[in-house]
């Protein structure tokens, strides 16, 4: 139904419309073009800008708490104009506010930056462009998805300014701390807003996820079989499936917590004496919440990581000028990760009072998930082997991602061993682990993606030199922050501590904490290089050529400034997988997916040569397509897709007909 929008802008009464550049859309006003847009590209940009906004806030918050951790005696009185009462008269930050800072930093980075900002941006932008669709299956739902996210963002943002502070019980918001307003100020209004915001956020994720899945399944262009999908799309597809299955569980966890908070139920509460009185609740279990939370929580970390890995696969293959090594193994390992990510959640709960037998089971399952992760890392490295590597900033960020993925993944193996985890759980070792493997790796995926697809986003190039400087500052900086953090973790320092001086056993490594804080703040500041580059190049950057990275995927066949509908006229058909780089015999070192096998007899592999017979040429349009595909592809005559939906529209175009004439 929603796709009617697309139809109305492109089909009805605008025959000529398809033939001229969509940039000259005349009937889009400011509101429909920039605000309530149903164009996947605009929605992607909205997500990207929102993500950048949140990243600035999230990094800002972490800078403040790193000041506290690194420089115990520092006077932060100068922050008083912004933070008011949260700065104590002594010039230190209030311990409650410290907890609020780490909580909001975690929430913002995990959900608002690396989930919405990464998946939201690139799934939206790339799925239609790379599979050859005019838009998402439902542009309207897609728009709703963004606006639910926007409202969630506003609410979360407002909570930062509450007098009692935002939610403060850690990003995992374990009850009873998060359930009882009397336990800490952040568990009052701040927690209410957190829960409402997250509920809306989940709705947004589900709307987006359903759309991604439907679009990938239904709207692939002719010839784009699943075995020819770029790995980006595979990653987004599997990510969306994970999200669709796991976010509802977080929703239920949040709902039950809302019930406990507002309506006096006892899902998570039992035998509690607080604030001088015994609460009436009995029979609930805080552990139940942890199970529900981590049933989302662990898949969530892959929701954050998989898109980044997909982006990396694409960028590494393109810039190594080599096929990604083990395309099928890459897909297989992502599928394995998808399935396994649902059965390892309790490794976050080894010492929560979980039955030790369950602990054993989850230890086994957890270490199994390390295998497909290892396979991916090896495949990346082998892709570099014997390449002809061009170091674009995107390529550097992708190599950096692989490095972080390895470093952080390896420490996961130590943590996944429940016996070792007894000591390491809730120490800085865990903080180092997940910042590398999830935080830094996914952030690098996001940045790599921006550097790589900026030309497609804005029709202009980012400045390369600034990109290099940005990369090296950030890459080195992140290692300077998180590598020594392992040491602090091995020494046993607990996370979420306001100060360590109260304990003999933790009263050391002062210099190391100085160092980490300084490195963190400098790395944060280095991000301004990127911000400048981003906004400057958006308006003043060098104009992008059609296919700046000499890439194979379909998005580079669309106009430099694609309009709503992406391609003018025909959607290109696809005849080959996306990784025909440096194919022996070919004149160029890349063969885009829309080049028919019949056009490249010199480079076809023996089995491909045999497939040429299956390609037939449409007499009317000159478009060559694959017979088998034609048999499988739904056509308008099937009437499976409502006329006017993006899919139907597209099928009509694929066979070269005019939607109006049929």
């Amino acid at each position: 139904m929603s796709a009617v929008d697309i139809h109305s802008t492109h089909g009805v009464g605008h025959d000529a419309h398809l033939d001229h550049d969509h940039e000259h859309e005349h009937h889009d006003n400011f509101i429909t073009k920039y605000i309530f847009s149903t164009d996947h590209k605009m929605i992607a940009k909205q997500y990207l800008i929102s993500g950048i906004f949140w990243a600035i806030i999230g990094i800002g918050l972490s800078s403040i708490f790193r000041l506290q951790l690194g420089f115990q005696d520092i006077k932060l009185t100068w922050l008083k104009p912004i933070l008011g009462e949260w700065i104590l008269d002594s010039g230190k930050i209030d311990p409650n506010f410290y907890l609020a800072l780490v909580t909001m930093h975690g929430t913002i980075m995990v959900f608002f930056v690396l989930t919405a900002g990464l998946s939201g941006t690139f799934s939206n932008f790339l799925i239609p462009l790379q599979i050859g669709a005019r838009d998402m299956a439902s542009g309207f739902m897609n728009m709703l998805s963004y606006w639910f996210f926007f409202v969630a963002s506003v609410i979360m943002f407002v909570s930062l300014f509450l007098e009692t502070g935002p939610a403060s019980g850690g990003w995992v918001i374990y009850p009873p701390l998060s359930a009882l307003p009397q336990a800490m100020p952040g568990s009052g209004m701040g927690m209410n807003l957190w829960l409402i915001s997250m509920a809306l956020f989940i709705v947004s994720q589900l709307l987006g996820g359903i759309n991604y899945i439907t679009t990938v399944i239904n709207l692939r262009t002719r010839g784009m079989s699943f075995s020819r999908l770029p790995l980006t799309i595979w990653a987004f597809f599997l990510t969306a499936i994970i999200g669709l299955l796991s976010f509802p569980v977080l929703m239920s966890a949040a709902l039950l917590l809302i019930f406990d908070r507002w309506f006096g139920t006892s899902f998570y509460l039992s035998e509690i004496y607080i604030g001088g009185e015994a609460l009436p609740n009995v029979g609930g279990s805080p552990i139940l919440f942890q199970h529900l939370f981590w049933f989302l929580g662990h898949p969530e970390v892959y929701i954050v990581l998989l898109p980044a890995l997909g982006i990396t696969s694409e960028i590494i293959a393109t810039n190594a000028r080599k096929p990604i090594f083990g395309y099928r193994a890459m897909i297989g390992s992502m599928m394995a990760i998808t399935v396994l990510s649902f059965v390892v959640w309790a490794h976050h709960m080894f010492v929560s009072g979980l039955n030790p037998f369950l602990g054993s089971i989850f230890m086994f399952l957890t270490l199994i998930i390390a295998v497909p992760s290892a396979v991916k890392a090896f495949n990346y490295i082998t892709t570099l082997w014997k390449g002809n590597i061009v170091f674009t900033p995107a390529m550097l960020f992708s190599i950096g991602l692989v490095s972080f993925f390895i470093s952080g993944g390896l420490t996961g193996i130590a943590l996944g061993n429940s016996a070792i985890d007894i000591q390491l759980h809730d120490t800085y070792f865990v903080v180092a682990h997940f910042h590398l493997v999830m935080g830094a790796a996914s952030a690098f995926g996001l940045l790599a993606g921006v550097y790589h697809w900026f030309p497609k986003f804005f029709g202009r190039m980012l400045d390369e030199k600034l990109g290099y400087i940005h990369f090296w500052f950030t890459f080195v900086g992140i290692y300077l922050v998180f590598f020594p953090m392992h040491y602090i973790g091995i020494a046993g320092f607990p996370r979420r501590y306001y100060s360590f001086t109260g304990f003999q056993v933790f009263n050391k490594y002062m210099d190391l904490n100085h160092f980490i804080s300084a490195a963190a703040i400098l790395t944060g500041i280095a991000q301004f290089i990127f911000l400048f580059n981003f906004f400057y190049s958006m308006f003043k950057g060098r104009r992008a050529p059609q296919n700046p990275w000499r890439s194979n995927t379909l998005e580079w066949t669309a106009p430099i400034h694609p309009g709503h509908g992406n391609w003018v006229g025909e959607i290109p058909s696809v005849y080959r997988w996306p990784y025909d780089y440096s194919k022996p015999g070919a004149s160029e070192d890349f063969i885009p997916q829309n080049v028919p096998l019949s056009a490249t007899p010199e480079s076809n592999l023996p089995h491909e040569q045999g497939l040429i017979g299956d390609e037939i040429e449409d007499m009317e349009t000159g478009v060559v397509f694959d017979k088998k595909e034609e048999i499988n592809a739904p056509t308008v005559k099937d009437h499976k897709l409502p006329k006017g939906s993006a899919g139907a529209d597209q099928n009509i175009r694929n066979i070269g007909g005019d939607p109006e004439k049929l």
Partner: protein
Amino acid sequence: MMNILLGIGAILIGVILFMIFRVGTLISVVRGSHHKRAGTSNKVNAALLLVFLVLGTIGAVWSSYSAADDFLPAPVSVHGEQIDTLFWVTMGILCAVFFATHVLLFYFPFKYQFKEGNRAAFYPDNNKLEVIWTIVPAIVLTLLVLSGWKVWRDITADAPQEAEVIEIVGQQFNWWVRYPGKVDKELGAYNFRMIDASNAVGIDLSDEKSFDDFMGPSGELRVPVGKPVLLKIRARDVLHSVYMPHFRLKMDAVPGMPTRFWFTPTKTTAQMRQETNNPDFNYELACTEVCGRGHFSMRLIVVVEEQADYVKWYNTQKPWLASTREDNLQKVPANLREKALQIIGAGDNPSAAVTPVQEPTTEAPVNPAVVKTSTSAQ
């Protein structure tokens, strides 16, 4: 004034950087260097990756070497030593993989950097390789899991019967320690509804087993060396977590769901003071589950004593009921009051009414029910 100057300075630097950036861009446009597929920057970046590899390796080795003194505090529990072995073996393997993969990851880009006229190998897959690097990690991981599993099973097995049972209760923001009294050597029941200012852990006075229980001195957890100690862990308000870094011990304290962890200390505080040459040395217990404002200050000193000293100390402790007699005695059900008074009296004069506890071996085994309840606490 200073701020304004700094501000102006920052703006100036920004402007200068911007100019440099503009000039750089213009020059590259004039030279047409952006038409080349890969120029000097490509070589520089390739070289930098190698430099990063070398400096990074040096930095990683040097920094971990110089930080190593403060790694894992000396283990002082039986299972702690096993965990440490496991940890270092695992870390050894992980570090080897880390360096091997990173050498390749940074050397390949350098070696195979873009050269005009070169062509990448068209090498899309190799099933044999895939199988190898699926199976080898799988085997290594299996070995790690199996060795970890064995240790984990031992650690989480039921506590031995002769274990010293001690209850530890977390609240915002401190810990309470309760010992079973010497009359029955069993912890009495508790009930969170009985918590009040004098009864911090909700000792249930309708259970006669609780009459002789006593509360540990504030700020301190006292345990004997060389003997299994079973901690029964609870929380009063929100989640807390008992963490004793030297003992490799960690277990959440959950309101409404008692948990437990048992361990055998291997070194007394006095021994450690000697070994570390630090007369002020103390073992500590910290909270590792965020619990609010004072989370970072939930500290308890853990005192490990020779068994004889421990028993001597233990025997001189007065029942909690005795020290708060006025308030709490009337909460004891009437039919048990006499018994309570008798036990309190015994507390006053240890040598009189009850035989004091002797060395563990001569002691009748602890009622298995105690151990059992803690087991079923899952």
